[in-house]
């Protein structure tokens, strides 16, 4: 008697969990599918909610001229790539010093890295803006409205997390490895670049991706520090909606959603790549013990 009832219960709970998963799939999927659908409709279809009367793939061609997606993406790419470059150079160096040398204030600086990543962006931006304005008027050098000021603040806010992650990676590398290289007569810089960097490459990749995403997805800094001619994609699209949407609703939602989806693709791809690297790193560490 007890065997069939056990089997029944098991089957019922299987169905219950299948239902739960389906509910999640619907809630995740509906907005994404709806938006992808809108990006393929004509504007009249969007207004009528008339979904099935034809595809308009040319939305994906129009956005480059009507919204100016090309220049937005170019600025975002320039900012994100420069940010990654600065972060990697500074963070690898700092992480090496913090992980391999003992000196006064070391743990204070390491703790500062941890707290630093938790400071709100607005809190950093206000004084930086005031200081940029000051530097601009005394040095006659453009920081507000250009890309350089944005790159610097994006990089500065990404560095604490980067240093923290790289530090823990470096501490996983046995010291004997670099000590052996020093005995063989290699300089500190060569030890770092030729011995340690190859070993912690997965960590460096994760840090690079996180920094790229932080810069690519940033709205706050870009909204203040870029001008009409240097908009990045996140703030460019936001501004497009707000400036057109407050009036009679002249937002080209179909094209906007096409643009938003295009700009989301690199971010989503990088996010999943980093995700896998992080998981691999965790399991590799577990195997190593």
């Amino acid at each position, binding site marked *: 008697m007890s065997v069939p009832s056990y089997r029944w219960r098991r089957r019922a709970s299987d169905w219950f*969990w299948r239902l*739960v*998963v389906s509910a*999640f*799939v619907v809630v*995740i*999927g*509906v*907005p*994404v599918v*709806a*938006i992808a659908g809108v990006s393929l409709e004509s504007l009249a279809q969007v*207004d009528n*909610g008339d979904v099935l009367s034809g595809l308009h793939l040319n939305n994906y061609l129009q956005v480059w001229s009507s919204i100016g997606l090309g220049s937005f993406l170019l600025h975002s790419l320039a900012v994100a790539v420069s940010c990654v470059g600065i972060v990697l150079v500074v963070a690898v160096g700092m992480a090496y010093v913090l992980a391999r040398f003992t000196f006064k204030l070391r*743990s204070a600086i390491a*703790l*500062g890295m*941890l*707290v*630093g990543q*938790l*400071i*709100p*962006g*607005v*809190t950093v*931006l*206000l*004084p*930086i*803006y*005031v*200081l940029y*304005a*000051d530097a601009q008027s005394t040095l006659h050098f453009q920081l507000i409205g250009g890309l350089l000021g944005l790159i*610097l*603040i994006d990089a*500065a*806010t990404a*560095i604490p997390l980067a240093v923290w992650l790289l530090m*823990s990676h470096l501490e996983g590398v046995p010291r004997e490895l670099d000590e052996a290289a020093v005995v063989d007569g290699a300089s500190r810089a060569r030890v770092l670049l030729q011995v340690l960097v190859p070993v912690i490459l997965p960590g460096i990749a994760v840090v690079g991706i996180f920094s790229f995403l932080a810069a*690519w*997805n940033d*709205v*706050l800094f870009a*909204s203040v520090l870029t001008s009409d001619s240097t908009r990045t994609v*996140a703030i460019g*699209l*936001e501004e497009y*909606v707000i400036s057109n949407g407050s009036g009679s609703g002249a937002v080209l939602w179909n094209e906007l*959603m096409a643009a*938003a989806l295009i*700009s*989301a693709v690199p*971010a*989503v791809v990088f996010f*999943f790549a980093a*995700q896998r690297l992080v*998981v691999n790193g*965790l399991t590799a560490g577990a195997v190593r013990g």
Partner: protein
Amino acid sequence: MLVVFYAWPAVVSIYISLTKLNVFYLANWLSAPFVGLGNFTSLFNPETPFGHDFLGSLEAAGIFTGCAIGFGVPLGLLAAVALNRKMRGRAVFRVLFILPYAIPIYVSALIWRFMLIQKTGLVDHIASVVGGSGTYWLIGPNAIWAIVMANVWASWPFFYLFALASMQGVPTEIYEAAAMDGAGGVASFARITLQPLIKRPMVIAIILSFIFHFNNFTTPFVMFGTTPPSSADTLPLSIYLYGFNLENFGVATAMSVLSMVVLMVPVLFYLRSSRPSRDLARR
């Protein structure tokens, strides 16, 4: 560089928060009139416009953060439990469930702004099927729920990631032993999964997400721009508007100093409960 971007701004911040710095003094901020604690006292007085805005936005940020955690934790746990079972297509679902979190916040905010357009938006379409009528989501008192919906949708997988990762560390033998001793599904979830094994990672996830959501500027800004309905004017947005729209940097900086004070609470919890700080202390 870190001195330039952290230490020096911190000093400058505290000084600015004590002054009446506005656009007239911006080119030479040291010349702004010094008002002592005046900015802070007016922020705590609900009779003044500054205080009214500050306390209102503190409340909005509280609701926003509370909902993100209050809905996100159960959703994340439920999803993680579901996908920790053997099931056909599990690998696909595991990736799909991360999608809302992988989409940039500005994109999900745009998506939700579009879906919440009154009457023609998808949300009102669905609501009308079950008998609801067109709601003004994007203006007035409902606006806070618009950003809450968008934010919960976009952020719950954070808890799911933490929960699933720590559940995978739980050996299946424990569950088998519990089943043999007669524990049902609910009991083994409460006693094994929830209690000792994934409590710590979840606590860390909650603390971190408190900080992220309390600081979330992007969602309200992308959905409402520089003229948000007051119900959706969360603290980071309010600080931003005081600073960069009203160009009242003194008051804005005073608000941001106070928001740092609020955030010190979870930060201290984080430092106490996360392993990194203990590793540091041991050195």
